[in-house]
């Protein structure tokens, strides 16, 4: 469906406003459903705890870690229900 068709169906003449609304709708759809999934891979560095989430992330689905001893399978890991006692280790 083209932007023009959306404008005609919604009875609107403001192209820029309709395009902005369409972007909002796409964002809402991606937030509620899994229409377009992406995968980001990062190298885990020894003694480094923090990793950046993808900048275009809308909704986090799974986090997995590579198991090199099991034929290179990525295994899904769990989210911590609470913060650990150690907040920072200055000499990990």
């Amino acid at each position, binding site marked *: 469906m083209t932007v023009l068709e*959306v404008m005609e169906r919604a009875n609107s003449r403001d192209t820029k406003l309709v395009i902005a609304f369409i972007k909002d709708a*796409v964002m809402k759809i991606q937030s509620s459903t899994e229409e377009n999934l992406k995968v980001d891979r990062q190298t885990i560095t020894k003694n480094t705890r923090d990793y950046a989430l993808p900048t275009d992330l809308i909704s986090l689905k799974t986090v997995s*870690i590579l*198991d090199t001893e099991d034929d290179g399978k990525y295994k899904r890991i769990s989210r911590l229900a609470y913060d*650990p006692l150690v907040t920072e280790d200055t000499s990990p």
Partner: protein
Amino acid sequence: MSFDTGKNYVYSHHGKTLRLWRFRRTPAKDVDTEGRTTTSGWHSFIYPDETIDSGLRIEYTAIEKPFVVEDPDENSSLTEPSSVSELSHINMNRMLSLAVVDYVKAQTAERDGNIQAKEYFMREFFNKLADNESNKNKAFVAQAVSPYAVK
């Protein structure tokens, strides 16, 4: 070498940062050099203790090519337009495109101060999202029959 990663790692997230923790299991009665014992069953979290190339995999939803030049219902290879115009296509299937129309109608109604119409169109928007999701699950479920089942 990473092993049993599904059980040995956990994560938490803080804003834009994902924190990885390695789960360290210690013996129930671990005696240190000064004769002290740890609490029975005590486990602790440590920082990742090894480097794993491409070891972290994050699966997420994102906006990718919201507008395309070609009609996504007729083409599989799609290109993003340099600038979005009235002739650009929404990169969604027909059902979700109709949901987008409802969303635009809802926002337009809100700008006009018609909250009742806005709520009606938002309900239509979410109905179409639900329809689109349930349309993917219309598959029959097969079940094996045991050899001694009464028929």
